[in-house]
């Protein structure tokens, strides 16, 4: 389970580039939110990018992904096109979900991205079912379910882990433990704060990984995926991470110290990987500058796409409440 990925120059570029894309995208989202271009809730992933990038890097196109409401990083790392992702933030017809979902509900059929789910814990049973379908149809895909440590307190977490382990389903459960369920610290909500130990009680392969280290996350995920594809049943990864920003935009962060946030920022997954890759000679300064410029250009283009995208006509309000057919 600990097979280190072989880090080529190209691979390092890709890991850093993906994390930068997410970071620049979300910083722009924060700005657009203050301008009221983006409304509703906006939950930023800044600080947690190593998880999405490391995990998605280890998946195949035929795998399925179920994400949480903090889903921008998951979607972009999975390959959801950035223009439609930004248009979704705006609520425009060009959005990946035709604007109907918004920030919390990016869905994308081509990348088998089954949504940001905004009911904490609600995505786990879906992932179990997607994995069940893979297994019954004798297809090679696995289902990956991302959730925060807040979901661990929900009944659906326990029901789903039990069912997946019982039926040996090809599911990878990823708990992104950022220590706070909105404003509730993990030690104030969990009797056992070592989440991977709870998971292990369901007799599935469970381990903890440094979620601020993209290489460690990718390595752990590759090991997990190999185990699952080999018929070993579900795997549980607890990624220790931290969100640098508030839970959502309108959050005064009364529940945590600034000093704590600053301490975690020293472990910023982007700076950390960049510094390491430069010192290891995997990347040159020019690479970093080029990746940064490319991310900004891509985000600029995504904003332009979102601005130009039309609104859904009111006549389509009730479309897709009931479907005429199952899309294939």
């Amino acid at each position, binding site marked *: 389970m600990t097979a280190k990925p072989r880090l080529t120059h190209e691979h390092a570029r890709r890991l850093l580039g993906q994390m930068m894309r997410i970071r620049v995208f979300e910083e722009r989202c924060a700005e657009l939110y203050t301008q009221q271009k983006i409304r509703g809730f906006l939950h930023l992933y800044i600080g947690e990018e190593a998880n999405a990038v490391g995990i998605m890097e280890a998946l195949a196109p035929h795998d399925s992904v*179920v994400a949480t409401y903090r889903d921008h990083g998951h979607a972009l790392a999975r390959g959801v096109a950035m223009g439609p992702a930004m248009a979704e933030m705006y609520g425009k017809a060009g959005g990946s979900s035709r604007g109907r979902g918004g920030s919390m509900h990016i*869905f994308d059929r081509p990348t088998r991205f089954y949504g940001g789910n905004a009911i904490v814990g609600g995505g786990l049973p879906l992932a*179990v079912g997607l994995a069940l379908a893979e297994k019954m149809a004798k297809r090679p895909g696995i289902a990956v379910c991302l959730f925060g440590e807040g979901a661990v307190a929900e009944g659906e977490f326990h029901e789903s882990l039990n069912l997946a382990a019982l039926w040996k389903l090809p599911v990878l459960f990823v708990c992104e433990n950022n220590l706070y369920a909105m404003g509730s610290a993990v030690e104030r909500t969990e009797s056992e704060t070592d989440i991977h130990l709870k998971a292990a009680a369901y007799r599935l392969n469970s381990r903890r990984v440094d979620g601020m280290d993209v290489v460690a996350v990718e390595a752990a995920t590759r090991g997990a995926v190999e185990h699952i594809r080999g018929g070993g049943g579900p795997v549980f990864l607890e990624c220790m991470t931290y969100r640098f920003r508030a839970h959502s935009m309108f959050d005064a962060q009364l529940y945590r110290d600034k000093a704590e946030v600053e301490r975690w920022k020293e472990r910023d997954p982007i700076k950390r990987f960049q510094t390491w890759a430069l010192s290891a000679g995997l990347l040159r300064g020019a690479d970093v500058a080029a990746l940064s410029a490319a991310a900004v250009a891509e985000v600029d283009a995504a904003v332009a796409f979102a601005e130009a995208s039309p609104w859904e006509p009111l006549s389509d309000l009730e479309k897709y409440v009931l479907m005429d057919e199952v899309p294939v």
Partner: protein
Amino acid sequence: MSTAPRKTTYREAAREAIREAMLRDPRVFLMGEDVGRYGGCYAVSKGLLQEFGEERIRDTPLSESAFVGAGIGAALGGMRPIVEVMSVNFSLLALDQIVNNAATIPHMSGGQFAVPLVMRMPTGSGRQVAAQHSHSLEGWYAHIPGLKIVAPATLEDVRGMLWTALEDPNPVLIFEHVQLYNMEGELSPAAGPVPIAGAAIRRPGRDLSIITYGGSLPKCLAAAEALATDGIEAEVIDLRSLRPLDDATIMASVARTRRVLIVDEGWRSGGLSAEISARIVEQAFYELDAPPARLCGVEVPIPYPKHLEDASVPQAESIRLAARALVRPA
């Protein structure tokens, strides 16, 4: 194979429907608590495990939210699951998955994903199993856009609605009233799929329309027979589908009879009967010779003793009296 109608029960017809679906489509499987080895709480799936094996007749742990959610996920993943929940009361443990996922994902994803899931669950009173196993909550589910709600009340419907529901691209919830399982009747061996949309007039009549569904249908038909001896001809409408409602059939009947009695085992306040009544007033006000009348479950948790349980829900005699009062006011 003989084509003569054969004697059967609602339970056997429900089982035959599952068998047929399993044989017709390898994507179909049945999942729920005690559907396999036990044979189903109401014995609907008895024998199916032996015929189809554990892979397709899946016993689940007592985890309603997980296995209903897994049904939704499997439907998203291309399967055609039939998820049985042991009682409508237990389905409340899966309400998150039904309402927040099954009913919303198609719209919330902009039409990228459909949820072709079928859920079956027993509903209703009459077996003296008290307040946590006897309620009629289908009217709640009929409130939710994105779901289709059906209530087969005849052998033909319970035999034929399942396959049509499985072919529908939307989540369909099938409510089987517990008092119907032992209902006997004749069914053609050629009986097959029936539409899941539209109401049926089970008995034509000119003096009033009795609108009902599910377990109350046999009671309404019995009441109509008794009314006939009194010179009152009641038209009995079986809604069959609770969402969407067949407004056209309801309004056409009301326009003929000018009086309507809605019979629903569910509670009156904010219930399905209130919705039907409101629609009649909205759409057929000028056809009415009397205010729409309702006979519903008494607003109590269903009690255990038989006399109290019987008094909690409409019965043939109370239906007859309500209908008579409507047609021949004192």
